């Protein structure tokens, strides 16, 4: 059972029928079912979700990358602060970083003002946060491995030797 390949397929293609996965990986459906159950139980497989290009739909959605300088706590470093920040609905993801900032927080909102308000009223005043630097996303070119720029169609001939 190639567990890593199974998870790669799910990551790129979403849920697939168990029979198909078994055939593709050359194992039994029971092995696939067991691997999936284990992946869920151990928190490797978190959820299935779709990748949507909202910019194309003109749905108002704004992202900002916020570099956060913070004060670490004795014994736990930035873990408590990161967990606290991550609980806000607006927060899309939180990363511990190398480099100048300690954390990078990706925040999602419907417009720039909403994000500005979140930073001013929620994030910046949080105990332990020393400074923030907010950069707004203006346009997305690639996300989750998917290029969003227009790709030329396949030029293959329908029949070739």
């Amino acid at each position: 059972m190639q567990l890593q390949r199974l998870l790669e397929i799910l990551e790129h293609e979403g849920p697939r029928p168990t029979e198909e996965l078994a055939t593709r990986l050359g194992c039994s459906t029971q092995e696939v079912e067991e691997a999936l159950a284990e992946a869920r139980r151990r928190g490797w497989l978190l959820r299935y979700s779709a990748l949507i290009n909202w910019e194309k739909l003109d749905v108002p959605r704004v992202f900002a990358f916020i570099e956060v300088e913070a004060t670490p706590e004795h014994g736990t470093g930035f873990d408590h602060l990161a967990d606290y920040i991550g609980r806000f609905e607006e927060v899309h993801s939180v990363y511990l970083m190398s480099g100048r900032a300690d954390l990078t927080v990706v925040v999602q909102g419907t417009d720039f003002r909403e994000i500005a308000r979140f930073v001013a009223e929620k994030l910046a005043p949080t105990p332990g946060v020393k400074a923030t630097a907010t950069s707004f996303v203006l346009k997305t070119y690639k996300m989750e491995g998917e290029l969003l720029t227009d790709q030329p169609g396949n030029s293959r001939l329908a029949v070739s030797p």
Partner: protein
Amino acid sequence: MSKRRNCMVNEQVAAMPPSGIRRFFDLVQEMEEVISLGVGEPDFPTPWKICDAAVDAMRHGRTSYTSNAGLLELREAIAEDLYRRYGVQYDPATEIMITAGVSEGMDVAMRVLLNRGDEVIVPQPCYVSYMPCVELAGGCAVPLQTSEQNEFKLLPDALSAAVTERTRALVIGYPNNPTGAVMSRADLLPIAKLADRHDLVVISDEIYAHLTYNGSHTCFASLPGMKERTLLLNGFSKAYAMTGWRLGYACGPAEVIEAMVRIHGYTALCSSIIAQFGALEALRNCEAEMRAMVQAYDERRRMFVKGLNDIGLPCFEPKGAFYAFPSIRSTGLASDEFARRLLFEEKVAVVPGTAFGASGEGFVRCTYATGMDQLKEALDRIARFLERLRH
């Protein structure tokens, strides 16, 4: 008064039929919403690193001719690659040349190796160019039929029986287009013995070498004593999704390569330098990209071949390339008729097995280098077609 010609084209070429694939291509072109399993190339684009290296070469003014044999750097990289994979050692200076794909390599090889009337044994079903290349070079192509019950392998007894006083060479192409058959080291050893006994040159088209599943590819030149009598043809089209770049290579005895380079120098001068820089990047930095494509083909192969068997088209397990070659005998239709009706009635394009030789009758070639969902849709349509035939 001088006699007027009634045809501008020479008699031999005028008598040469177009490839059976070409005929089918014209039919498919006129239709819309066709799912094509008739394609002989990857559905992946060339890895970006390779494209970028070619663009970079152009930006830095690498747009000149190269030596007739091709960039030495690339020939060195090919020599290293062959040594690493198969343990076979070629001298990049004298035993390797760069060609415009295996197609050019095959043509030039025949012109160099054959004297008028020399016989060349060509196991079938096989790629469409082998026979015409032999004939154009003044040789006599001797088709040798392989069968499904022997997994489309070349059997030593059959080869022995086909050899005559005039046999000069043998062409093998494994992994095979169109059947997907492979020949293991154990299968090839007796063939090597016969090549030695009858003093045959073996032209080995190994373009699908990297696309070998459940095992590893055996390079014919790596068999004991075979390097001296093998002309190895390979290229970048299939493994690195570079079909349109037209880049391949030939490796063989210095005497043969020198003669091939002479012809190539007169007729092609050299292969595209831009493509050569792309190929260099492929060999140096694209193993992971290539492996990922092979993995995808392998998964589709398992799914598609099982699907064909499930809907009632028995298909022997193809262990290489990206083709399935199911038997359609149970339908009672000839290959050509099956492919034509499947195209018109269900808009699925497959290639009749007969395009690849007489022993392809009763089979069709289906490419699984096509997206998983398209393959599934094609299987549904073929199943529907079969259902209708049965009633």
